[in-house]
């Protein structure tokens, strides 16, 4: 009897909490279908008069697609180089013995604890002095640099758990390190490749501060910058803003459900070993 009672309150709490999470998301998606007047009087219920225009006008807006495209370029570019460079580095740390190994690993590890904000002004000046302003590289290169540390940790941890026997056998057969990296390490590492890719992709996709600093040219805006401009234009026209929010929210949720496993593995797998 007592346990039943406890379970009852437990579910009450959990459902209440789930409501607190879901209701804001629900009213946002549904709000995009409402007229401004209806938003005022009926924010919780389904729209009485469905208004599709907020969504359709956005989908027909070329800037909307341009910003999504730019963010895709930043995310894919960053991810490609982070995965390549971080896995190469981690491979050396995991398999090649040399004097400065430990020292260099710690060098990358320390970088992990440095707040990005500290470096932001000098970083901007460096990017400017290299002549990268006005190109996608202004966003991609700093994102690679700040993405390396954590990715190297994840890769190294994974590579070290691979059976040593494969490596020794391959070396005996005259396989060089480079060949081994491409023929054995990478093909055998799909779980960690997926994890690092997913983390890097989402990090870049959602990044706001870095593009905000680096990008001046509207044709290179990322979608979070675009959404803020949009918010500035239609300050209280919530229907339009909520439609924009929903259109970016839905792909994120789908992406998450498809790749949940890797996201969670990346967030917890890196350090919870003990």
């Amino acid at each position, binding site marked *: 009897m007592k346990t039943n009672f406890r379970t009852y309150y437990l579910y009450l*709490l959990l459902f209440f909490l789930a409501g607190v999470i879901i209701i804001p998301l629900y009213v946002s998606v549904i709000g995009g279908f409402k007229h401004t007047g209806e938003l005022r009087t009926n924010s919780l219920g389904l729209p009485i008069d469905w208004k599709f225009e907020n969504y359709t006008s956005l989908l027909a807006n070329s800037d909307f697609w341009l910003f999504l495209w730019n963010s895709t370029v930043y995310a894919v570019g960053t991810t490609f180089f982070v995965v390549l460079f*971080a896995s190469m580095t981690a491979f050396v740390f995991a398999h090649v013995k040399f004097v400065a190994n430990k020292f260099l690993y710690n060098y990358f590890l320390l970088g992990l604890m440095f707040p990005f904000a500290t470096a932001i*002004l000098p*970083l901007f000046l460096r990017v400017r002095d290299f002549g990268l302003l006005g190109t996608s590289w202004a966003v991609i290169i700093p994102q690679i640099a700040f993405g390396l540390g954590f990715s190297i940790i994840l890769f190294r941890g994974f590579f070290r758990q691979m059976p040593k026997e494969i490596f020794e056998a391959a070396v005996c057969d005259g396989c060089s390190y*480079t060949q081994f990296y491409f023929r054995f390490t990478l093909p055998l590492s799909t779980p960690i490749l997926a994890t690092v890719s997913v983390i890097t992709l989402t990090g870049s996709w959602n990044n706001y501060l870095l593009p905000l600093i680096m990008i001046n040219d509207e044709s290179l805006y990322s979608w979070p910058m675009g959404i803020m401009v949009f918010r500035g234009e239609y300050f209280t026209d919530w229907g339009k803003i909520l439609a924009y929010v929903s259109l970016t929210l839905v792909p994120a949720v789908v992406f998450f459900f498809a790749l949940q496993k890797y996201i969670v593995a990346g967030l917890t797998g890196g350090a919870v070993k003990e």
Partner: protein
Amino acid sequence: MRSPKLDALLSRYYTIIIFLIPALTIFTLFVVLPIGEAAYYSFFRWNGYGAPEKFVGFKNYEFLFKNRVFIMSLKNNFYIIAISLFVQLPFALLIALMISDKLRGAAFFRTVFFLPFILAEIVTALIWAYIYDGNYGLVAAIWGFFGAEAPFVLGDKDWALVAILIVIFWKFFGIHMMIYIAGLQAISKEVLEAAKVDGAGPITTAFRIKIPMLIPTIKLSVFLSLLGSLQLFDIIMPLTGGGPSNVTHSMVSYLYYFGVMRMKVGFGSAVGVVIFLICLFIAIGYQRTLMRDDNENKF
């Protein structure tokens, strides 16, 4: 003919150089050097053009610690840390303990609670800017239901920060819950079985076995929470932009408004260095316990 041993040696050096150079170069140029430069520039008054010439010593720092808005932003960051550590994390732990057991629907609740974490911070903040809007949002609807005039919480000096803290809680408690659940799943079944045989109830098990065994996990989540709190920016921009009357700035949004937007490289760098020093202070405290390499002696 070269000996195979020499070949192997050459191959090793070749690999070290080719494989390490890209990451080392980019990391050094775009992470390590800029942080060093920030420390250097913070002693100058400089707009970023030409060479920094106007050396001002500690003037930037002096100004900073006499500046009411900066002190406020520092305080705000500490409020955020305090709420995260003493309210959000214990709550996340509680929920994790509740739904890690064989509870029906655990997977559903886990997914729902984790959902806000995957949204972009900008999007989260825009959703809540709508919720808080006194004319249109949910807050307006709830107040309207009771026949009252809804407040504009984000425009209210006393409530704006509370409103931001609620959003932070909403967005981030799920990730900490997830980290704890992963930690709980790593606890061996035998230990829990043994406790059950010895007659330990769920509460005793939680306090005597699960929480003590979770300490490394808790340390990790505390660390992530501290660093995240110190770098908060995206959530503040759409909600208040630091207003009203500059009372809701975080250190990073302060840096953005008063350093980056006005191209005050020296002054902005000084803000950056303060953030860095706080992070460093925390990191040193953690280094021995958290970042310890579990296979120290393999090389």
